[in-house]
């Protein structure tokens, strides 16, 4: 039996998000999968070419409508649901885009969703984290049901490029609703690496004490070519913007190097960094739970240590 998997592309209108390549990698672990990517956009050509370039993609469908200039779940869900008929699986990334969209698709298809797929054990059998990653459940979906799932992107490598999928225009199969309107976005343009895909991440917590002190981390990150992250406590306190939050309710990341500075390591934070290759912790409190998961721990005053590290690099 073969699987026909439809992946909903995440993009900003011009660039395909890295999470889509990870969904393709996840889908490719399903035996005999034929993978189709659907791009909903106001103008889909550029993003469709990037999707067609991914190894393992058989076909790219483009849905063009002015409302898709912004990623509104209420507008995209009916398009994907209208196209989903021939597919056995519909996947999207477990980014805020996919988390917002995929359950709406699942409900339109009258099916359950498997959230945060971290491993594929079979076409209808998946592993996913529950309780902030403190337990891992294997779930089975009945084979006569369509599988809607979000893919925990930190669990999969990105699919390579060099693919040659064909691109098909399918128009707009559904008439999108008018009850939801995009107003604005505060997305800050940064020259730093993206937190979700960076090889190195420097992350700060409550112990930084101020937004000014947090600047110290940006300097260190720039020296290392690293992205900057933050604990919930640091974001709540206003030291860092919300898009930097790492953890159960923020971003789940898997960098080569994660440096936690002044972060105590609540379980909700640790769940966001479990897949990091090497975790470094710098904290004044030798009992901080972050040291239980750190590969390298340094007990001391971050305000002395961080400038010293900066000088040594």
């Amino acid at each position, binding site marked *: 039996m073969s699987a026909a998997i439809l992946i909903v592309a995440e993009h*900003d209108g011009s660039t395909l998000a890295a999470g889509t390549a990870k969904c393709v990698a996840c889908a490719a672990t399903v035996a005999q999968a034929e993978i189709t990517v659907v791009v909903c956009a106001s103008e889909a050509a550029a993003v469709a070419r990037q999707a067609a370039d991914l190894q393992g993609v058989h076909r790219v469908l483009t849905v063009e409508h002015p409302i898709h200039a912004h990623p509104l*779940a*209420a507008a995209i869900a009916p398009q994907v649901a209208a196209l989903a008929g021939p597919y056995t699986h519909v996947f999207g990334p477990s*980014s*805020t*885009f996919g*988390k*917002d969209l995929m*359950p709406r698709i*699942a*409900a*339109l298809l*009258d099916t*359950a*969703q498997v*959230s*945060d797929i971290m491993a594929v054990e079979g076409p209808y059998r998946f592993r996913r*984290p*529950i*309780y*902030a990653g*403190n*337990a*891992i*459940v*294997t*779930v*089975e979906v*009945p084979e006569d*049901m369509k599988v809607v799932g979000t893919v925990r992107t930190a669990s999969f490598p990105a699919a390579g490029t060099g693919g040659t999928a064909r691109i098909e225009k399918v128009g707009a199969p559904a008439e999108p609703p008018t*009850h*939801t*309107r*995009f*107003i*604005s*976005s505060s997305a*800050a343009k940064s020259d730093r690496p993206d937190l*979700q895909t960076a090889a*190195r991440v420097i992350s700060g917590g409550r112990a930084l004490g101020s937004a000014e002190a947090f600047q110290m981390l940006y300097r260190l990150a720039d020296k*290392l*070519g690293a992205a900057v992250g933050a604990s*919930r406590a640091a*974001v*709540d306190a206003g030291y860092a913007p*919300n*898009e930097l939050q790492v953890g159960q*309710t923020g971003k789940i990341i898997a960098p080569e*190097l994660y440096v936690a500075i002044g972060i105590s390591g609540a379980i909700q934070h640790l769940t966001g960094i479990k897949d990091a290759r*090497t975790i470094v912790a710098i904290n004044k409190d030798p009992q901080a739970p972050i*040291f239980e*998961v750190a590969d*390298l*721990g*340094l007990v*001391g005053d971050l305000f002395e*240590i961080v400038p*010293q*590290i900066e000088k*040594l690099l």
Partner: protein
Amino acid sequence: MMKRIVVGIKRVVDYNVRIRVKPDGSGVVLDGVKMSVNPFDEIALEEAIRIKERGLAEEVVVASVGPADCQAQLRTCLAMGADRALHVHSDTPTEPLTTARILLKLIEREQPFLVLLGKQAIDDDNGQTGQMLAALWQRPQATFASKIALADGKAQVTREVDAGLETLEVDLPAVVTADLRLNEPRYVKLPEIMKAKKKPLETLSAESLGITPRVHLRAVRVLAPPQRQKGMRVENAAELVAALKEKGLLAS
């Protein structure tokens, strides 16, 4: 018609409990564990109460699907300031799609202009119910809300998304799911707990609402996550940088 907000809440293992997986892989240990209102749902309820306090709503109805014990959490919600509670009895956990179908029935009955839920429950971490409800209701959704402004039959909702903040405008009625920074829920005081005992709490069943709960997903086994190896301590910044260099983590 009364301007009403419906808030969906779930009884979950308390945020501070350290979860233990049963050795036989059948689930996590729930016996004797402290249970609470799902923290995101508490934020959703706080927002509903504040909207009412600003005079933009007349009644806050809190609803939960779960075992008899979840009435304790509904009472907590009444003590926080909800006016009335609806308990849909279910001894087995319901999947998000079933919960959404049940909530839709309650919505058809209560006719709210706004439905608020937490963005996810911290037990299953599914994050589905609000979006599924909005789809079944054929109404707008605004997930991961950090700010809600209501005016002229519309809501402007600021959402915490991966790229930063995004603002959507949705026509009401709509479903909004709460993120962490929407507000800080109030503490419940003793007199309110006493008063809450007299507030109406109605118990229903899925069947009485015309819903047959469906089970789609079967949990095959539950395992503890792999533990990370305990690492080593270094004494100073120089040792740390040397160790990182040795591991090849500083080369670009």
